[in-house]
């Protein structure tokens, strides 16, 4: 038995050694080495809030304005540009002198004379969209600046704006009134020199751009209107006209290389969700929804309104309702309109982001408010 035990032990030792050596470590599962797919979460804002820059500039990480040449005359200028005064607007390209057909329709001119009272305001309004060279936002800002201080416009915006705006947008290139004036001039005083007129024209077209110019212009318009009331002297028009060339742009000097990307720091603002919710909440607080209204669940309300810088509504808010029954749509849209009118002026909107909330679109789901 001893011998066989020894044999068995030897056998076991052999087998175990073999097992330890050859069965060592089982092969690990061959996990396919899949390369992790890098996923970046890119918000759509990067595209929607994109800024326009120098198209010819090479692509760079940081957006930088075109380098300026002059020394800085203004201490704390915020907007880059070659201007002497720091202005928010973009510099306007000089327009080429246009040929003006003197054989324009005379009726229009007459009409202008007849409606001279409401003319300046209308004129200003029609000019703005036509002459705006860059982004929408900038234009909206200008519009608001213009509307506020203008004493004459007070009465007009609610009546005239809805009608005047579509027309201006439809025909942006045809600016009837600025051209009209010189025509008037040429009609009545034929001694005036043509090139000078053209210059004046272009200057006028450009003046709509900046607030400073605007004020000048407004003064001038006031003068003009007062003159209209008394006596219209066409010879003095050229003297009244501001012959200074309009130029936008800030006074801050830029030395960086121009890059693709915007130069306006104000263009990329938008309301945060909490600010949007605050606005929405103000409307909801004043909105009494009749509970149990049939089909109210499916109605979706969309409110589009234009706000001035005090948070008040300009004109009428546009309320559109979708889904649900006709009755529910009408009832809810009416309720929304009342709620908006009741809750104006809106508070808590950051004034520095006025560009973003000058025109607000608010969506409501009444089923969530019951």
């Amino acid at each position: 038995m001893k011998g066989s035990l020894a044999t068995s032990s030897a056998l076991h030792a052999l087998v175990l050694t073999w097992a330890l050596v050859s069965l060592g470590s089982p092969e690990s599962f061959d996990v396919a080495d899949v390369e992790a797919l890098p996923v970046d979460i890119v918000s759509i804002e990067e595209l929607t809030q994109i800024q326009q820059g120098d198209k010819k500039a090479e692509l760079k990480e940081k957006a930088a304005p075109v380098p300026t040449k002059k020394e800085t005359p203004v201490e704390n200028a915020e907007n880059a540009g070659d201007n002497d005064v720091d202005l928010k607007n973009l510099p306007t390209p000089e327009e080429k002198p246009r040929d003006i057909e003197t054989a324009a329709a005379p009726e229009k001119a007459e009409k202008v004379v007849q409606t001279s009272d409401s003319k300046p305001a209308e004129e200003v309004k029609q000019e703005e969209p036509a002459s705006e060279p860059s982004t929408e936002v900038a234009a909206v800002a200008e519009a608001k600046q213009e509307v506020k201080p203008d004493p004459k416009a007070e009465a007009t915006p609610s009546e005239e704006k809805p009608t005047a705006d579509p027309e201006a947008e439809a025909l942006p290139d045809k600016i009837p009134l600025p051209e009209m004036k010189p025509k008037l001039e040429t009609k009545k005083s034929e001694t005036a020199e043509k090139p000078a007129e053209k210059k004046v024209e272009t200057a006028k077209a450009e003046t709509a751009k900046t607030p400073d110019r605007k004020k000048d212009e407004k003064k001038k318009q006031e003068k003009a209107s007062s003159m209209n009331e008394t006596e219209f002297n066409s010879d003095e028009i050229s003297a009244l006209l501001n012959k200074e060339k309009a130029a936008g742009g800030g006074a801050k000097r830029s030395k960086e290389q121009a890059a693709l990307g915007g130069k306006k720091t104000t263009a990329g603002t938008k309301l945060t969700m909490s600010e949007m919710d605050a606005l929405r909440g103000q409307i909801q607080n004043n909105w009494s929804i009749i509970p149990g209204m049939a089909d109210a669940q499916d109605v979706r309300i969309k409110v589009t309104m234009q706000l001035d810088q005090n948070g008040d509504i300009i004109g009428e808010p546009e309320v559109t309702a979708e889904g649900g029954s006709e009755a529910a749509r009408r009832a809810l849209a009416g309720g929304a309109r009342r709620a908006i009118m009741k809750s104006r002026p809106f508070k808590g909107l950051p004034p520095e982001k006025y560009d973003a909330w000058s025109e607000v679109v608010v969506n409501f789901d009444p089923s969530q408010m019951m």
Partner: protein
Amino acid sequence: MEQVGLDAAHSVTLWGLFMQAGFVVKLVMLGLIAASVWTWGIVVDKTVSYGKARRQLDSFEQVFWSGQSLEELYRTLSDRQTSGMSAIFVAAMREWKKSFERGARSPIGLQMRIDRAMDVTLSRESETLEARLGSLATIGSAAPFVGLFGTVVGIMTSFQAIAGSKQTSLAVVAPGIAEALLATAIGLLAAIPAVIAYNKFSADAGKLTARMEGFADEFSAILSRQIDEKLQPRAAAQ
């Protein structure tokens, strides 16, 4: 023991698994390996001894039935170490000689004594043949359970360690379970040959015992005839 399933670099080699195992599991594994060694020792021993016994039976039967004188055969075998049939033959012949030389009176008593002597030797021989087969049976039936016990204990400690480490990734769980399962594997490794060997050797032992029993019966018949032949003339002479 606390390190089970905790260290990052787990070796999954057999040796690594064994070394990582807990104390109880190690003990179980070592016991099972010892059982396996014992089993195979018995297997080797029995294979050899049964082969030898079979050969001895063959050769003895050949000699026995060759017509050689029983006295002569007895004389050659009596001073040797005997086993199996030869042991039965020697025991029977010794009893015969003792009784006959002293002048046995009753043939029935002599027959009985010879049979007894042969039975005792036969049982002793079959006991020798079947020795340690019982431990094979025990290993065959108990080893899987012992291995299972090791596995259960190993998995238990492994899960305790996982609960302590507060993470459940498969990489943490796997080595502990693999190491615990090794105990069952070793248990089965010991048990399967033990069961097979037990079945085979008990059958072999049964066959050999049957052969020896057959020889004992035959030899008893021969001796009975001899007793009759030898005692008859004595009785007639008296």
